[in-house]
């Protein structure tokens, strides 16, 4: 058995020069596709019985009508969940989460946020996430878990009624699910904007280095 030490970066880091290992890149892009399909079909499903005073324009939804959107949603969910589980298992097993996303401290986040806003944040070492990145990534992983669980709870409010109860009952769970979607979309906007601002990070997520 090989031992993996979280403290010694070199033993666990991928080959020199590789910023994002292949498995992270593959899982990340599959996730991006699955998320976008889930979000766009979800908007069409939402339109069938809106929770708020607005609906989503059909030009940005997927599926055409309710049944089509449900087909997309309940197909892409497999991709999202299986891929998400692979990410969580590998992230924990390889120590990636511990190394890359930990520790997060309030003072660190404040300092890096200030540096970012004043244009002083360094992007020289892309293999290390700054404190704001760590916080956002850790948070969005949690939101990803909650969106799946709340989704399960409104899909199976009888079979998984304990889960539905955890989310405050069927009607409330719909709001939880919607809120998670909104958070993911908000994250996505910021995340994509930043990736485009620091193109070499995007290159690393595509080509590895």
């Amino acid at each position, binding site marked *: 058995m090989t031992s993996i030490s979280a403290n010694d970066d070199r033993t666990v880091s991928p080959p020199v020069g590789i910023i994002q290992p292949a498995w992270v890149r593959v899982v990340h892009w599959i996730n991006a596709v699955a998320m976008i*399909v889930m979000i766009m079909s979800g908007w069409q499903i939402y339109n069938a019985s809106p929770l708020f005073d607005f609906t989503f324009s059909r030009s940005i939804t997927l599926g055409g009508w309710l049944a089509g959107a449900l087909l997309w949603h309940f197909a892409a969910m497999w991709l999202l969940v299986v891929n998400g589980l692979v990410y969580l298992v590998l992230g924990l097993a390889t120590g990636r989460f511990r190394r890359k996303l930990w520790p997060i401290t309030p003072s660190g986040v404040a300092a890096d946020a200030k540096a970012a806003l004043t244009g002083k944040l360094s992007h020289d070492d892309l293999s290390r996430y700054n404190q704001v990145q760590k916080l956002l990534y850790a948070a969005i992983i949690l939101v990803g878990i909650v969106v799946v669980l709340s989704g399960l709870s409104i899909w199976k409010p*009888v079979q998984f009624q304990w889960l539905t109860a955890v989310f405050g009952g069927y009607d409330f769970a719909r709001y939880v699910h919607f809120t998670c979607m909104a958070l993911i979309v908000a994250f996505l906007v910021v995340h994509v904007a930043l990736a485009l601002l620091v193109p070499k990070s995007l290159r690393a997520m595509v080509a590895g280095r």
Partner: protein
Amino acid sequence: MRRLRSLLIPGVDKRLLVKDAAKLLPDPARRRFIAGGASLGALTLLTGCDVSDSFSAEKLLVQISKFNDKVQAAIFNPNTLAPTYTEADITRPFPFNGYYSEDEAPDLDGEDYTFEVRGLVDNKKSWTLDELYKLPEVTQITRHVCVEGWSAIGSWSGTPLRDFLKLVGADTRAKYCWFQCADVDGYNSPLDMATALHPQTQMTFKFDGEILPRKYGYPMKIRVPTKLGFKNPKYVVSMEVTNDYKGGYWEDQGYNSFSGI
């Protein structure tokens, strides 16, 4: 990029694929799915490849939906009861829902009404409403969950379907109870036998303690608290116990057939 494109677009005649997918569906659905192509366009923009053509999205999605039927049948626990509520929780007014308006809803005459029982049953006699009303009555207050996402709590009274199936000597190893309704368009829906035998699945004659009003399916509704609303047929006129999958009004248009909750 070329390699990616060739992965996404197998060497199959695009027009043939589209024709294939359309054949899977009845006419009204075909129209709706094609209308759906408009918003598939958004994904086309995002991915730079034409999703609807390249891998016959509909065909694949229908396949996955069938897989989801099996997964849901495995998740379905015959002993798990839908949560029940109190009188105070009942949604008033309980929403009317249908693909027709309230005054276009089927208007059946209770005097002439008969409930026909067909297929794999010992006793194929038809039942009058008086005879049905004499069956033992239970009342349940449960949540009706619509495929659209809204839900409402109602009180339904009638006889457990599983007792009726026993009474008529149905072969409960058969796969489906297939219900036919009196709607103009011939609404129908298949119910898998495991769900038909669930203790809360009910032949319903009353809503909120009153004879089922026209808008809620007079004279008989099948109330299935473990299924989405569209699998709870109203204005039911016949039941066939069968091993064949005979499709259903919404099921044929793309809604997942099992649709358990």
